């Protein structure tokens, strides 16, 4: 099991050091960004779900994307990973312009995501789920598929790597079970392990902790830190502020489609704009006077 203590490893120290001098304001430039997004906008009918002016994601760090329900976090995720089409805007990954690129190609060049509603492939075994993640498989080509001798060797080494990851994620005893027979938390683990099979440079986790029991949460946190220690950049969407505080090196806060604050976790938690976004601007006013104020700050879910 990876360690669950809050002390970051070498990579974590480095990430925090690199971000130490970055200004804590929305759109702050980072020393070594892996993703740079500009003017990304997406609206559904009259509702502007995402309207991000400028945001950069630091390489090698764990960045949390937080915000109240309906803030546009998942939509922003979908846009960046190509699963949804932005109305306008451009963004780069590793210095390469990737706006409009097909999602599978983005995954191939190293930007791999998971989903809020876990997508374990139920009627396939855990091992098949894992193998699916590996990139550049010869046997995935139609004509090569018919000749097993072309891909048997590769298949074996993929299985070995999968087994190693499954052991790390404590799923190795389930290797031949259908993914559909796993518990919700185990599916989250499987999805994460499967994404790692693709050797991502940037792994984007959409609410990795949703519906996971507290004990498993701790181990998930450990896994996310391990990813950083192995050099993978992590961007994750989360609701739970305690979790965010625990593992992230940098926090980006979205509300009503825009980035409203950025900074190290401690600073962001104290930011007045963030508190207002989560609790409403008048949350500390007298209850008798807040009827209007509360409805005013409640925003709908864009999806």
């Amino acid at each position, binding site marked *: 099991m990876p360690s669950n203590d809050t002390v970051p490893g070498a990579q974590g120290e480095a990430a925090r050091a690199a971000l130490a001098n970055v200004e804590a304001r929305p759109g702050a430039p980072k020393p070594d960004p892996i993703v740079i997004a500009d003017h990304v906008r997406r609206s559904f009918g009259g509702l502007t779900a995402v309207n991000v002016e400028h945001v950069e994601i630091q390489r090698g760090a764990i960045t949390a994307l937080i915000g109240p329900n309906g803030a546009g976090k998942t939509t922003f995720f979908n846009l960046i990973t190509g699963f949804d089409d932005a109305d306008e805007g451009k963004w780069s990954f590793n210095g390469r312009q990737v706006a409009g690129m097909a999602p599978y190609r983005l995954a191939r060049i190293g930007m791999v995501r998971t989903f809020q509603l876990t997508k374990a*492939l139920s009627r396939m075994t855990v091992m098949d789920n894992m193998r699916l993640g590996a990139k550049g498989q010869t046997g995935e080509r139609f004509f090569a*598929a018919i000749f097993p001798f072309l891909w048997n060797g590769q298949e074996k080494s993929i299985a070995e790597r999968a087994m190693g990851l499954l052991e790390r994620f404590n799923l190795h005893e389930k290797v031949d079970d259908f993914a*559909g027979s796993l518990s919700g938390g185990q599916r989250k683990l499987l999805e994460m392990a499967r994404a790692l099979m693709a050797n991502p440079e940037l792994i984007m986790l959409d609410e990795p902790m949703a519906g996971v029991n507290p004990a498993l949460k701790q181990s998930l946190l450990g896994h996310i830190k391990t990813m950083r220690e192995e050099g993978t950049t992590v961007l994750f969407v989360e609701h739970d502020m305690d979790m965010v505080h625990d593992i992230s090196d940098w926090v980006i806060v979205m509300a009503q489609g825009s980035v409203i604050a950025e900074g190290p976790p401690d600073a962001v938690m104290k930011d007045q704009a963030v508190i207002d976004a989560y609790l409403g601007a008048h949350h500390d006013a007298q209850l008798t006077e807040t009827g209007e104020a509360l409805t005013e700050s409640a925003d709908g879910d864009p999806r």
Partner: protein
Amino acid sequence: MDWSFVLTQTLTQAIGIQAIIYCLAAIGLNVQFGYTGLLNFGQVAFVAAGSYAVGVIVLTFDLSLWLAILVGIVVATIIALLLGIPTLRLRADYLAIVTIAFSELVRLTVRSIAFRDVFGGAQGLNGKLGQDFHDTNPLPADFQSLPILSWTRQDLWVVIVGWILVAFFTFLVWMLVRSPWGRIVRGIREDENAVVSLGKNVFAYKLQALILGGIIGAFGGIVWAVAKQSVQPDTFRPEFTFFAYTILLLGGAARVMGPVVGAILFWIVLAGTGEFLGQAIQAGWIDFLQPTDVGNIRFVLMGSGLIALMVFRPQGIFGDRRELALDAK
């Protein structure tokens, strides 16, 4: 009542030419629907493409049957591209709607008066369509009949080659689905976005599955044209596709042997009940039915059987019930 007649007739049809044609169509559907999850409701269009390729090339253009087979494969590929490119990026239902409409479009086009010179109109194309194939018949010229199975010399040769084709495509599908290629298409069936997120070009794989399934279906049509030496537009009605689905579900979708066992079973039930009822009416056992009702009654029985199957064994003969229970994503 002639029991031996009922038995031999049933057996002859169970592994006969019709069974082979439906079996090939169902193998194609198994690739598309069973493994990849593509709802192709127009498999009959691919079968028609195979049949008409033979008819048009051999009869209308007076060229060789072997060229016709090649044309059949090419036309099936073109149809798959035509149907797949606009719809496979969309949700599954779009392909279903487009394919069922397209299959009727094909039938109405080939039977239209406008193209009568090429496709033969409502009469279809009749003549020595399979001569090139029948010339290769190695069976002795004085061949009469097999002991139980009542095929002519010509039909027996078609049946032999037909089952070889079935075996070949079954083996091909088996090789494919246990390869990494098969893993991807099964993944697409489960959840295509998950597969996309792992860097696989889902659209290309769906297209490949649609083409492969279509080509296998076209071979069903080729066998049909060669065996019957005739191509009739109205045999390519949407029912054909639904019978092929019945066969697939009977045997068990996403099972390599599903279509083979399903096709044999389908024809045992269909031919068996037909022959039995016919004999029973003749023998006076059943007096509330006319011989002309038999054709319909056997489909009633088939339908009831299918309902019973869905209730008691929804996974089909070969399916794994555990998998079915996991349907929730």
